[in-house]
């Protein structure tokens, strides 16, 4: 059942540039109406994957199915897609109307039906009055929205977006993120989106596909990725984290017992088979940690001295040195009355369930 609802199915997709492997046997499924974001550092292969789906590069292996048809060797012009390019790629010699009309014309939409479709598209992006202008006469944000309209006007199977907000300033970007999300909902369309901005990915996506070194590191909802990262890379790449190296000393009531230098003994959820004495990295989000008032009890308690306090708007970040050079970051909502002072001694605590344990593959490096 799910197979036939798949808008996009990718199996074993591989792409090499000379000796470098840009995509390494990638599998990906995109269901109808989904907004999936490819997230990753530069060079992780996310754009290569998007371009392969668009038919703009030739994969060295694997298959791409769009809407239940094998599209692996179909040229871009035959794939029934819409694409928004990083710098929009609006045709400078055509007016806005002609730009939006182009995909309709290419899909042989009768000339009589085009004006209505174009008008609707322009209404959707709230730019009804610019149809006869040339794109160079529009602002960056307006050009961006024209590019969006051009991508969705012909109702393609999938809309691909290659860092479409990268060239805009922060305010405009925030605004357009919501705009794109609204369009996605109203049009009930399927979107494959590429960005290197994790916040953008979090705000917009149904699911995020985290890429690293040409492979998929983890795929899941923003919530899953943020609170249950599958790998050390995922934990480190997304948001802020406390990562502390140590080793496993045993198990106690379905909890792993860890020994961390300078901190002491900690408990963490037991997920995978473990090896006694194995080197691990313990992970927590700064907002999962709290500064204890003295009466509270948590599974893990650590004492330390406040090294620094940074107020970054709504959040206050407290850096606590807990011994042996290790520092734990605690993030809490900024409050006017309760202030922690540098040099203060205090206790930090958290429940075992909020922590994660990863095999330490960084040790070789250190």
């Amino acid at each position, binding site marked *: 059942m799910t197979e036939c609802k798949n808008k996009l199915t990718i199996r074993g997709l591989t792409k090499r540039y000379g000796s470098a492997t840009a995509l390494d046997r990638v599998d990906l499924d995109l269901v109808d109406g989904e907004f999936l974001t490819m997230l990753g550092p530069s060079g992780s292969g996310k754009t290569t994957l998007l371009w392969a789906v668009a038919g703009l590069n030739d994969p060295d292996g694997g298959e791409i199915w769009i809407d239940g048809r094998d599209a692996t060797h179909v*040229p871009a012009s035959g794939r029934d897609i819409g694409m928004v390019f990083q*710098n929009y790629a609006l045709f400078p010699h055509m007016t806005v109307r002609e730009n939006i009309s182009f995909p309709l014309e290419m*899909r042989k939409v009768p000339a009589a039906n085009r004006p209505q479709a174009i008008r609707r598209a322009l209404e959707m992006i709230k730019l009804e009055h610019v149809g006869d202008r040339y794109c160079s006469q529009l602002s960056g944000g307006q050009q961006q929205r024209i590019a969006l309209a051009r991508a969705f006007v012909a109702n393609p199977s999938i809309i691909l977006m290659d860092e479409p907000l990268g060239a805009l300033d922060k305010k405009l970007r925030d605004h357009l993120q919501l705009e794109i999300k609204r369009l996605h909902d109203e049009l009930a369309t399927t979107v494959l989106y590429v960005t290197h901005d994790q916040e953008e990915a979090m705000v917009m996506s149904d699911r995020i596909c985290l890429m690293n070194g040409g492979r998929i590191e983890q795929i899941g909802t923003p919530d899953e990725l943020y609170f249950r990262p599958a790998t050390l890379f995922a934990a480190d790449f997304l948001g802020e984290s406390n990562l502390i190296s140590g080793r496993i000393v045993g198990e106690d009531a379905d909890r792993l017992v860890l020994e961390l230098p300078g901190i002491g003994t900690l408990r963490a959820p037991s997920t995978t088979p473990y090896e006694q004495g194995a080197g691990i990295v313990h992970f927590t989000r700064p907002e999962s940690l709290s500064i204890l008032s003295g009466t509270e009890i948590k599974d893990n308690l650590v004492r330390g001295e406040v090294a620094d306090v940074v107020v970054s708007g709504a959040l206050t970040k407290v850096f606590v040195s807990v011994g042996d050079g290790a520092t734990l970051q605690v993030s809490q909502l900024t409050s006017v009355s309760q202030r922690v002072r540098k040099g203060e001694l205090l206790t930090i605590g958290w429940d075992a369930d909020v922590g994660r344990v990863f095999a330490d593959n960084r040790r070789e490096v250190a």
Partner: protein
Amino acid sequence: MASADVAAATTAPSPARPGTHRLRWQTLPVAVFLLALFVVPVVTLLSISFFDNDGSPSLEHYKRLVDVPLYGKVLLATIKVAFFTMLFCIVGAYPVAYLLATSRKSTRNWLIILVLMPFWTSVLVRTFAWIVLLGRKGAVNQVLTAFGITDAPVQMIYNFTGVMIGMTHALMPLAVMTMLAVMEGIDPNLTKAAATMGAKGGTRFWRIYFPLTMPGVASAALLVFIASLGYFITPALLGGPQDTMIVQLIIFQIREVLNWQFAGAIGVLLVITFMLIFMIYDRVFGLSVIGGAARTASPAEGSMIRNYAGRVGTAITWGLAQITDAAITVFARWVPARRGGVGFSRGGLYLVCALIFAFIALPTLFVVPVSFTSEAFLTWPPKLFSLQWYQMVFESPVWLGAATRSFVVALITASVGMLFAVPCAFALARDNFRGKSALFGLVFAPLIVPNIFIAVGLFFLFSRIGIAGTTLAVVLGHTVIVIPYVVVTVLAVVKGYDRNLDHAAATMGASRMQTFHRVTFPVIRSGMVASFMFAFIISFDELTIALFVTGGRVTTLPKLMYEDALLAVSPRLAAVAALLLVSMSIVILASELIRRKGGFGLGTK
């Protein structure tokens, strides 16, 4: 690319500095020099045509122009030559420019040398090579008869065909470079975007790429047309009597009958032709497209003709797109598409471009073997091997003297040109001052005005002040020609220089002199050297000015070659041409390498 680049280009206005709006002293030498030795002579030449031979105002020369049918006929023949040259150049240069624009950068740089080498090889050497190739006993005819394709030698030179071949060969690099400039500015994502919207290959090319290259095509067409109108060397050496160009009439009037006023009148006729062409061009394309990048596509406004032309153009490209797509579809049915390999259309492009590159680069090389012939006349294949012609050249005081004079003249011209033009280019690149656009116009005018006007005007002026026929006269004339080129090249270098480097040096305590000496100059040095060599080559190769302002025993190498070639094409000339070809190629290659290697990744790299 578009918006980000535009933003980058329009931001960061140079901070206003004190004295911004004063006339800059460093532009004075150029301004004065060009006014005295360019504007005054040319204007004088054109205005004396309104006087009769006794010096009283009269239109008798214009009456003669109208009455004698010869002049109208020659003008029409000139326009015909210019038109077809333009056509062949555009058609031949477009695929080459497209290939260059879509190749990798390293490949492109080498191919550009291949295009530019013949451009900077002496016009005389190239024309001469065509005589070797296409003459009655030339290489082409020998091959044709040997294979029995023709019984008798085909007449390929001393007629319209010869002129077309020579002129297309001479001007095609100009067309390539002009179109390349526009094509490089086209965002490669545009055709990809069209593909994602469902456009096939033909539609992508004709409806997206081609319209965007139109500004380049239009300016290349204009440049080639204008340059062709002022041409005379190739038609004189490769054409027949019916291919006489209008400039040749001016030369005849000055050199044979010394009728200044009538020569001026022919000049005015040429100027009027120019202005008409500019007007027509402006109506159809708009003059603003010259040098305009592809992205600033002009919104359709202005003249009705332009709107109409635009609509016709859209219809034509639409039709071509349909035809091409259909052809590709049919072809794809026969030949199954190979994945990942070179596409059919790309393969075709390579083939076409290989042929055009061969046409551009190979013919000149034919002067080398014939220069080693042991016979007394040119044959193909040459009877090898003899150095007698080289010996003859090196033992001839006339040839050696001419070569030495050309060398010295080029050296002085390039030095003086740099001395005048570099400060001027700095001012033009960095400062805003009153009369800046006027100065721009003055500096670039010698590029547009045919050299023959400058040559005849200077001859007239120099005769009055008694320096005609001297080396000084050639140097002065060449400096006029060279200044615009130096300004253009130095301007490009200075514009590509990040002034924040200077600001940074200043914050570290460097004085203005130290900043220039330690930071600015080392960065722009290679550009300066290339510019100097550029000027040197132009002067060394210049014929028109030398033809008029030198005389008697004071002659330059190009002039001696030209006059020798008019009499007879001998193996001795082949030896000179071969020597020139080799030495100039070395200079050109060296300056290209200096410009690229030492560029610190600035500018054109």
